[in-house]
């Protein structure tokens, strides 16, 4: 990026404003700029430059002052929530939000862990990169069982857009032809370990409705020309992705969409700009721009644009909308339906089963695979629902050998113990349930009536909890994974319920949902606000149901489809 593309003060009326720079914001900016739209990307956090700002990349553990651990006082004061994320450590903490600055409140008796990544690139730097298409069954689920409003789109509407983004992103995976998990456009899959391959073969014979496949992830295994031209390279399986990857081997804003957008010369970036609210003109019924508070100086300024795309994460976008009040929209912009903030969902990852695998003593692997095993949802339509709950879950995990990280407190001393630490231990299989969460109106975010954050913006108040349906699903996932492992001949099977609150799958969706009827939804089938035509919301807040799979690929497909629609509408002078 050239310096002149970084904006602080500007009176320019941009063709499009994109709020947020994560996975959806990056895509919106790329698509608009490549279509000739002068686009302002607004990011509340600091700039992070690809490569240059990956300050801990390739840093070995002995070069950390605390060997990658984070000081107790620092965690206690600033990262109590963020530390719950598996990827939080001393080498990544600079990409996580500070809980003190980004505080929120929760309803008594409930808990929600909101993981924050507020810098250029957002959570695209930290995501787990697992990438799946939602299926025809996911988009039809609400209509099929009546648990939520019908999605206004079907799989066929999104399929070409999935393919469009996959060609650019690069998804590794295997073609399986499963109805509940449509294939993507794949680069070669990561390999399974030998016990995993045998497990997959055994399950194909004994549990044919539960195919065991390699997970699909946004890592380059055979980069195409588009990716090579952006300076991206093949993944070498370090699996230290959340420190940043100078190879650009995994998809992020910095490695992919941002350089593509910057190439056009149409991209402008306003960093350190915390959006306080949208500027709404009641006469024209249009969003004219945004009011922002400077992240550092706390000064207020405004930016203007003809179109606004909210891509600030599910809760971030919803907070901005709720805080954009006017005479026409006293409870938040585009909220004539009253559903804005309701129907918050995540995925439930609380069921974990482990077991030991006998044999394979001279079997090992090399590299650190960023992918896992995956067992797609097998309760994917009402006729396949379990008797005790609705919808379904997937299982994800792996089989690898235990090592010093897990054997460190085992018994022994001396040379014998040293050898134990040195040598790989036995094989362990781990499977974790990934359950769908139902859309409940009671799971809601609203603005605190009394508390504001350091930028003077009302804090988000979150009232969200698991329902009996999700709990029953956890029990079933434990049972199913245990049975699969038992049938495979594994032993010492252990079932654990993690007891984590919603939020920690970091798949929050649903608080400004799409729908056909403006009376019960915020957005139409193109992620456009029913009430305000030049306002689009394309992140996870648009979801009508959570589905089972990791949602990011769907965020991307929805975003590019919405941009395509918006551009056509502008060109046809309907917008």
């Amino acid at each position: 990026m050239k310096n002149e593309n970084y904006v602080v003060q500007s009176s320019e009326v941009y063709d499009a404003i994109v709020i947020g720079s994560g996975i959806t914001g990056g895509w919106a900016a790329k698509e608009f700029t490549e279509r000739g739209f002068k686009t302002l990307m607004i990011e509340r956090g600091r700039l992070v430059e690809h490569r240059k700002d990956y300050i801990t990349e390739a840093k070995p553990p002995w070069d950390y002052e605390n060997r990658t651990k984070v000081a107790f006082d620092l965690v206690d004061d600033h990262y109590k929530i963020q530390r719950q994320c598996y990827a939080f450590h001393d080498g990544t903490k600079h990409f996580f939000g500070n809980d003190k600055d980004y505080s929120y409140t929760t309803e008594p008796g409930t808990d929600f862990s909101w993981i924050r990544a507020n810098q250029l690139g957002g959570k695209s730097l930290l995501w787990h990169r697992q990438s799946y298409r939602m299926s025809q069954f996911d988009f039809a689920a609400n209509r099929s069982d009546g648990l939520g409003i019908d999605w206004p789109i079907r799989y066929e509407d999104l399929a070409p857009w999935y393919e469009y983004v996959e060609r650019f992103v690069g998804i590794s995976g295997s073609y399986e032809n499963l109805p509940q998990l449509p294939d993507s456009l794949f680069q070669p899959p990561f390999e399974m370990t030998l016990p995993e391959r045998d497990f997959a073969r055994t399950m194909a014979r004994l549990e044919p409705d539960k195919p065991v496949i390699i997970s699909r992830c946004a890592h380059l295994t055979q980069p195409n020309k588009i990716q090579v031209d952006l300076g991206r390279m093949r993944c070498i399986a370090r699996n230290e992705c959340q420190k940043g990857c100078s190879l650009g081997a995994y998809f992020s804003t910095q490695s992919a969409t941002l350089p593509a957008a910057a190439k056009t010369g149409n991209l402008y970036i306003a960093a350190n700009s915390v959006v306080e609210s949208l500027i709404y003109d009641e006469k024209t019924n249009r969003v004219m721009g945004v009011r922002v508070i400077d992240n550092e100086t706390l000064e207020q300024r405004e930016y203007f644009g003809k179109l606004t795309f909210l891509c600030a994460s599910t809760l971030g976008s919803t907070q901005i909308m709720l805080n954009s009040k006017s005479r026409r929209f006293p409870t938040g912009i585009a909220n004539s339906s009253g559903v804005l903030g309701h129907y918050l969902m995540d995925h439930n990852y609380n069921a974990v089963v482990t077991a030991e695998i006998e044999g394979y003593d001279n079997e090992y692997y090399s590299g650190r695979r960023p992918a896992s095993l995956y067992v797609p949802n097998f309760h994917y339509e009402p006729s396949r629902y379990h008797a005790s709950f609705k919808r379904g879950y997937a299982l994800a995990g792996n089989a690898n050998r235990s090592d010093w990280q897990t054997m460190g407190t085992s018994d022994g001393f001396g040379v014998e113990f040293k050898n134990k630490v040195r040598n790989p231990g036995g094989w362990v299989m781990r499977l974790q349930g990934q359950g769908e969460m139902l859309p409940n109106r009671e799971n809601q975010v609203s603005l605190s009536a009394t508390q504001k954050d350091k930028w003077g913006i009302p804090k988000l108040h979150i009232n969200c909890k698991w329902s009996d349906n999700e709990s029953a699903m956890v029990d079933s996932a434990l049972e199913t994974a245990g049975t699969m492992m038992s049938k495979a001949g594994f032993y010492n099977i252990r079932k654990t319920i993690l007891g984590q609150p919603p939020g920690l799958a970091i798949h929050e969706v649903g608080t400004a949902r799409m729908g056909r009827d403006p009376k019960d939804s915020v957005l139409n089938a193109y992620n456009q606000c029913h009430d305000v035509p030049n306002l689009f919301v394309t992140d996870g807040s648009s979801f009508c149901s959570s589905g089972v799979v990791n949602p990011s690929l769907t965020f991307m497909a929805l975003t590019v489809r919405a941009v395509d629609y918006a551009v056509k509408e502008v060109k046809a002078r309907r917008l």
Partner: protein
Amino acid sequence: MINRRHLLELLISVSGAGTAAILLGGCSHNTNKKLVDTSWLLTSDQLETLRHICMQTIPATHTPGAAEVNCHQFIDQQLKVVFSEIDQQKSMMLLDKIRSVSNLYGPAVFERLSPDKQLALLRDLEASKDPFAHRDLEAFKILKGLIVFGYCTSEEGATQELNYVAMPDGFKGSVPLSQVKSAYSSKAYY
């Protein structure tokens, strides 16, 4: 391992020599902080006891042991900086107890006992046998976990005893263990 020359050429072509040097310079952040001989939390007596526990747990062989890579000083620092006061107290009380019951195993404090006697004491501790109780074992697990962690994340432990591979050339799902010999970790280092 990836062909470093090939990767270096590719990296320089896309990202310049600076980034390539960072990635391929043998982990060349290399501030290589050496633990200085200052106490963070533990008394000199406690530290000396801990040093001998390190020697008994992971001794020097053809590679350095835990004491040689200063695990005891590392643990002192970790306890002070990363652990809660409760865990700090538990650890210090255990070290004091080890010193105070040493006379049951021989006519000296722990560090002056013969290696066999030290080992006998530690084995009783690990088995929660008299004079040790289960709560002592809980505290010892903190220390033992830190000995292993400190050793395996030290440069010597990770690269001489274990096989720390900063830049694997992709993932291979099936490799004979006899070819690998030792392993750093199969998992991401979270």
